[in-house]
C-alpha cells in the first residue's frame, strides 16, 4: 500500500489549513455561499436535504485497517454511527456539521486520508479494479499508475475549474470490474508485443446522456501517461461547453466534435505538452510501485477448503474469488443484506472488517464500485474463521453479483437532486427475491437503481436498471434492460411506461420469469436479453 512521505503529509496538511481558513471566512460572512460552494465541494462537502454530506476519498478503493478504523471513528464521533460506501469507491457521511468539517479532515490526515476533490468540477478520486494486485487475470497492478495520477491531479492548477466533474479509472485486466468505459477517461493497461502501454478511452459517462467512451488512443507509452492525460484535459478545459451544465461533460464535447477530431486536437496538444517535462521519471514510478508489492504470501498454503458447513459452502461459492497465488482467495463482503440499505455499514461493522483485514488479509481492504468491501489476500485455510465472524456481524450475505446485490444511490431519502427514493425500492426488490435458491437460479444479474436522471446509481449500466423520476408530483420508476458496466459494456433500453413503487417490483419479477423461460444453457440474463431482444420482455411486462 502507498505510504505518504513528508511531501504528501505536507500537502494534505496545507489543504486542511486552507480549508479551515475558508470555513472560518465563510462562517464570518467574508465570502458568499456562491464563492464558498466550489471550495467546499473540492473538499468533499455537499449541502444535502437535511445536513452537510462529507465524501471521503478512498484512492482507487484501497485502504488499511488503521484507515478503516478511522472511518468508523468518524461515523461514531461526527455522524450517526454509520457511513455509506459509494460507487466511486469512496465513503460518505450524511449528517455532518459544517463547523466539524475541519476537525474531521484533520483526523483523516492523521491516517493519510482526505476528502480532496471528491466533488466539484475538478478531477475526482481515481478509481480502479477492487481486485488489483490479487486478481488472476491482470497483467500488472494498475494502482501505481492510479497513485501517480492521484498526485498529478491533486491541486492541479489548470484543471480545478473545469466545465464539469471529471472521473478517471485505471484497470489492467481484460475483465472490467471498474466500469472503465463509463468514465470521462478510462485507461486500460494492455500488452502489445511484450510491452505494456495504456489504451485511452475518453468521453464515457452516465448521467442524463449516457455514452460509452470511444477508444481515442490504442497505445500510449506508459511513461507518457500523464502528459497524454494532460493533453486530453486541456482540450476539454478550453473547448468543453460551459453554457449549459447538462452539456458540459467531456462526453458531449467528443460527441459534438467526433472522436476523430477530438483525437486530432489531443495529438496536437500532446505534441506540445510532451515537451514540458510533465511526466515523472521511471524512478518515481518504481518508488510508488514498490509500495504496492504483493505481500509475502505462502504459495504452499493448503488449497483445500473444508466445506462441511453448508451455509459456509454457499458463501464460498458466491462471495469468494480466485487469487493469483495458490492457497489464497479474495473475499468479497456484501454490504447488501436483505432489507438493508445498499452500501451502508455501521461503525461496529467497519471496525470488524478492519480487524479481519489486519488479522487475515495483510492489513488491506478494498471498496468496490458495487458498494461492497473486499479482503484481497486471504489464506483459504482462514476462510471459515472469517466467515463465522462476518456472519455474526450480519456481513456474510452470500449474494455477490446476484439480483439482491443492488447498487443504489442515496435517492430522495438524502439527496437534494433526487426525484424519487431509491433505498425503499432496493429493499422491496431484495425482499421479494430473498430466497437464495431463487437468486442463484437467476444467476449473475446486476440490478442498479438511480433516484434521478444524474444516474449515480448506474442504472444505464444495469442488466436491469431502474430510474426514479417525478411524474406530476408522484414517484415513478422507469425500467431499463440490457445495460452493462463490465467488459461487455452496453447501455440499457427503457422498456416503456414506468411504474409505481410496488409496480416496479412486480415488473422485475415478470422480467426474470421471462428470462427463465427463454434462456438457453449457460446464458446469463443479459445474454438472453441480447439474443431475444426487448419484444418478448415487453410483452411479459405490459401484456
Amino acid at each position, binding site marked *: 500500500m502507498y505510504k505518504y*512521505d513528508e*511531501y504528501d503529509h*505536507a*500537502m494534505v496538511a*496545507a489543504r486542511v*489549513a*486552507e480549508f479551515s*481558513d*475558508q470555513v472560518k*471566512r465563510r462562517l464570518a460572512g*467574508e*465570502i458568499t455561499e456562491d*464563492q464558498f460552494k*466550489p*471550495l467546499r465541494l473540492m473538499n468533499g462537502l455537499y449541502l444535502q436535504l437535511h445536513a452537510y454530506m462529507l465524501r471521503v476519498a478512498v484512492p482507487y478503493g484501497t485502504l488499511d485497517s488503521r484507515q478503516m478504523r478511522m472511518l468508523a471513528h468518524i461515523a461514531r464521533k461526527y455522524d450517526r454511527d454509520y457511513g455509506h460506501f459509494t460507487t466511486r469507491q469512496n465513503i460518505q457521511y450524511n449528517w455532518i456539521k459544517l463547523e466539524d468539517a475541519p476537525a474531521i479532515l484533520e483526523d483523516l490526515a492523521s491516517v493519510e486520508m482526505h476528502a480532496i476533490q471528491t466533488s466539484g*468540477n475538478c478531477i475526482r478520486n481515481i478509481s480502479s479494479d477492487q481486485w488489483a494486485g490479487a486478481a488472476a487475470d491482470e497483467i500488472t497492478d494498475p494502482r501505481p499508475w492510479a497513485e501517480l495520477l492521484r*498526485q*498529478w491531479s*491533486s*491541486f*492541479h*492548477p*489548470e*484543471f*480545478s*475549474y*473545469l*466545465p464539469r466533474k471529471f472521473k478517471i479509472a485505471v484497470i489492467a485486466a481484460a475483465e472490467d470490474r471498474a466500469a472503465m468505459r463509463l468514465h470521462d477517461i478510462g485507461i486500460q493497461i494492455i500488452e502489445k508485443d511484450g510491452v505494456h502501454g495504456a489504451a485511452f478511452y475518453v468521453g464515457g459517462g452516465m448521467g442524463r446522456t449516457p455514452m460509452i467512451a470511444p477508444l481515442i488512443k490504442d497505445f500510449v507509452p506508459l511513461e507518457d501517461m500523464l502528459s497524454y492525460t494532460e493533453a486530453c484535459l*486541456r482540450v476539454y*478545459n*478550453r473547448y468543453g461547453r*460551459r453554457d449549459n451544465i447538462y452539456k458540459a461533460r467531456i462526453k458531449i464535447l467528443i460527441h459534438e466534435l467526433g472522436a476523430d477530431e477530438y483525437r486530432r486536437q489531443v495529438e496536437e496538444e500532446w505534441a*506540445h505538452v510532451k515537451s*514540458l*517535462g*510533465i511526466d*515523472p*521519471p521511471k*524512478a*518515481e514510478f518504481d*518508488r510508488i510501485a514498490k509500495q504496492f508489492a504483493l505481500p509475502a504470501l505462502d504459495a504452499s498454503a493448503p488449497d483445500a477448503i473444508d466445506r462441511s458447513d453448508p451455509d459456509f459452502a454457499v458463501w464460498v461459492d458466491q462471495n469468494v474469488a480466485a487469487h493469483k497465488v495458490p492457497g489464497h482467495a479474495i473475499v468479497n463482503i456484501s454490504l447488501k443484506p436483505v432489507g438493508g440499505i445498499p452500501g451502508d455499514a455501521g461503525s461496529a461493522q467497519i471496525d470488524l472488517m478492519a480487524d479481519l483485514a489486519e488479522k487475515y488479509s495483510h492489513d488491506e481492504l478494498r471498496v468496490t464500485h458495487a458498494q461492497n468491501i473486499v479482503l484481497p489476500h486471504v489464506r483459504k485455510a482462514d476462510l471459515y474463521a472469517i466467515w463465522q465472524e462476518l456472519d455474526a456481524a450480519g456481513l456474510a450475505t452470500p449474494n455477490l453479483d446476484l439480483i439482491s446485490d443492488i447498487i443504489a444511490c442515496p435517492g430522495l431519502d438524502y439527496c437534494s437532486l433526487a426525484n424519487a427514493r431509491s433505498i425503499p425500492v432496493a429493499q422491496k426488490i431484495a425482499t421479494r427475491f430473498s430466497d437464495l435458491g431463487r437468486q442463484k437460479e437467476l444467476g449473475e444479474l446486476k440490478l442498479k437503481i438511480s433516484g434521478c436522471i444524474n444516474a449515480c446509481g448506474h442504472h444505464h449500466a444495469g442488466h436491469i436498471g431502474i430510474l426514479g423520476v417525478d411524474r406530476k408530483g408522484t414517484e415513478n420508476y422507469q425500467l431499463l434492460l440490457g445495460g452493462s458496466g463490465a467488459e461487455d459494456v452496453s447501455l440499457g433500453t427503457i422498456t416503456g411506461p414506468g411504474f409505481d413503487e410496488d409496480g416496479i417490483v412486480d415488473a422485475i419479477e415478470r422480467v426474470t420469469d421471462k428470462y427463465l423461460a427463454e434462456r438457453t444453457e449457460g446464458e446469463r440474463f443479459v445474454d438472453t436479453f441480447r439474443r431475444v431482444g426487448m419484444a418478448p420482455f415487453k410483452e411479459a411486462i405490459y401484456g
Partner: protein
Amino acid sequence: MVEHLHSDGEEPCVTLDAFLQQSNATAVRLEPDEDARALIPHLDRLALIEVAFPKFRDGRGYSSARILREAGYTGELRAQGDVLVDQIAYMKRCGFDTFAPEKALNPADVEAALSRWPEHYQTAADGAVPIWKLRHG
C-alpha cells in the same frame, strides 16, 4: 514579485480582434472563448496580456495563461475580473503575475493564499520544481 493590483496610467488593452489588425498595440485583453495561441506570433511586442475572468468558475483562462507562458511569453500576464483570493494561488502557478480583481482583496488573505503551499505535485508555468523531482534529486 507578485503584484496584486495593476498600476494606473498604463496603455489600455485592446481586444484580440483589434490587436490582430493593429500592429502598434502592446497590451491586449483575452476573453475566455478566445484562442491564446493567436497571440503566439506576436508575443515579443506585447508588454501586457490581460486574461478576463467574467466568472470565477470559468477556468478557461488558466489554460490561456499556461499556453502563453509555455510559448515563451515573459511580459505581464494579468488576471482580471471575478478574481477571488481562493483562486489566485492556482492562477499564479499557471503563469499570472498580476491580479486585477473587480472587488479588492484583503492583503493579509492574499499573502496567506500565496504562501499556503509548501511544494507542488505537478509541473506548471511558475517554474516550481515538482515534488517528484525533489524526491529524486
